[in-house]
């Protein structure tokens, strides 16, 4: 088990103080790594809260350049960064906030050619992609490598969160065996605070999975409705003929 330095004990004393968390959970975080795929409105705050909590290593995957309409939610970016690649901006923001963090930022999204490498170098995956194809690809790879995946998605004022824990829980392919033809990645609105809320919850869930602290959302779907401020929990089940986990 890794030891905490004087600096770390001081820096994290307010969370070490939480009953049941303590130095043990902090040491586990110091020995942990996570992949956050896409660091936009959802993955950005996820990565930030993981960095703040004292995770040892983060791997980010995010292609593309910053557009003006990203700036209502992608809080790791820079106001003067429009037209520039997003991964280096996220990298710079996280390093400035937490210089102790080990960080590797890939300037492309998770794709068939890199998914095994991305998943293979971490303990846990936070799936914050805006695309079903990428999500299902990560799901299958996490299942293949036996890695936990915190699955977070939002739409308008609504946010979904669950933890996929191979081989025990249902996988993403169980609930999304097909993508409906009406689905459009840009077909809904986003108010930054909604993916921001979900990003904080995603980081919290990842911290719990990595440290064993508290109860996690394995086999449970949490739905946050930002319109009426309700949280609902639903039990989800495996699809008997699922090609990934069945």
């Amino acid at each position: 088990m890794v030891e905490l330095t004087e600096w770390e004990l001081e820096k994290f004393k307010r969370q070490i103080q939480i009953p049941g968390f303590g130095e043990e959970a902090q040491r586990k975080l110091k020995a942990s790594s996570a992949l956050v795929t896409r660091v936009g409105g959802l993955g950005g705050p996820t990565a930030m809260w993981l960095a703040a909590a004292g995770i040892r290593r983060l791997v980010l995957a995010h292609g593309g350049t910053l557009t003006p309409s990203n700036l209502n939610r992608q809080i790791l970016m820079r106001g003067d960064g429009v037209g520039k690649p997003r991964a280096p901006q996220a990298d710079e923001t996280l390093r400035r906030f937490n210089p102790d963090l080990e960080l590797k930022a890939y300037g492309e999204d998770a794709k068939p050619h890199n998914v095994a490498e991305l998943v293979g170098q971490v303990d846990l995956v936070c799936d914050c992609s805006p695309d079903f194809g990428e999500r299902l690809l990560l799901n299958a790879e996490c299942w293949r490598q036996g890695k936990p995946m915190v699955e977070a998605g939002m739409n308008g004022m609504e946010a979904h969160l669950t933890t996929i824990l191979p081989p025990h829980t249902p996988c993403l392919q169980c609930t999304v065996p097909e993508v409906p033809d009406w689905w459009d990645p840009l077909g809904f609105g986003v108010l930054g605070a909604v993916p921001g809320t979900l990003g904080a919850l995603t980081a919290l869930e990842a911290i719990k999975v990595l440290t064993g602290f508290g109860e996690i959302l394995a086999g449970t779907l949490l739905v946050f409705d930002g319109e009426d401020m309700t949280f609902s929990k639903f039990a989800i089940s495996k699809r008997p003929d699922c090609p990934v986990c069945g």
Partner: protein
Amino acid sequence: MVKVKLFANLREAANGQRVVECAVEEPVSTTELLRKLADQYGEKAQKLLFDKGGGVWQSIVIMRNGEMVRDREAKTIGPGDEIAVLLPVAGG
């Protein structure tokens, strides 16, 4: 009567209503309940819930009193049940 909570684009298709009531006097299947909803709210709801072959999209998740209903044809939904209709979401 069953209370049905709607999410995502389905809420929009039902004129912005978060919770709607559906007349159910005896047990119905999830397919039958969604058919009633589609009849109630028209083409937009129909397209969100049913594929071109007339089957419910497999990625629509129906919760009955907090538990996922896998069997689409069993008559598992009765008066007084609370139903949630979840559409797949992938925003990041």
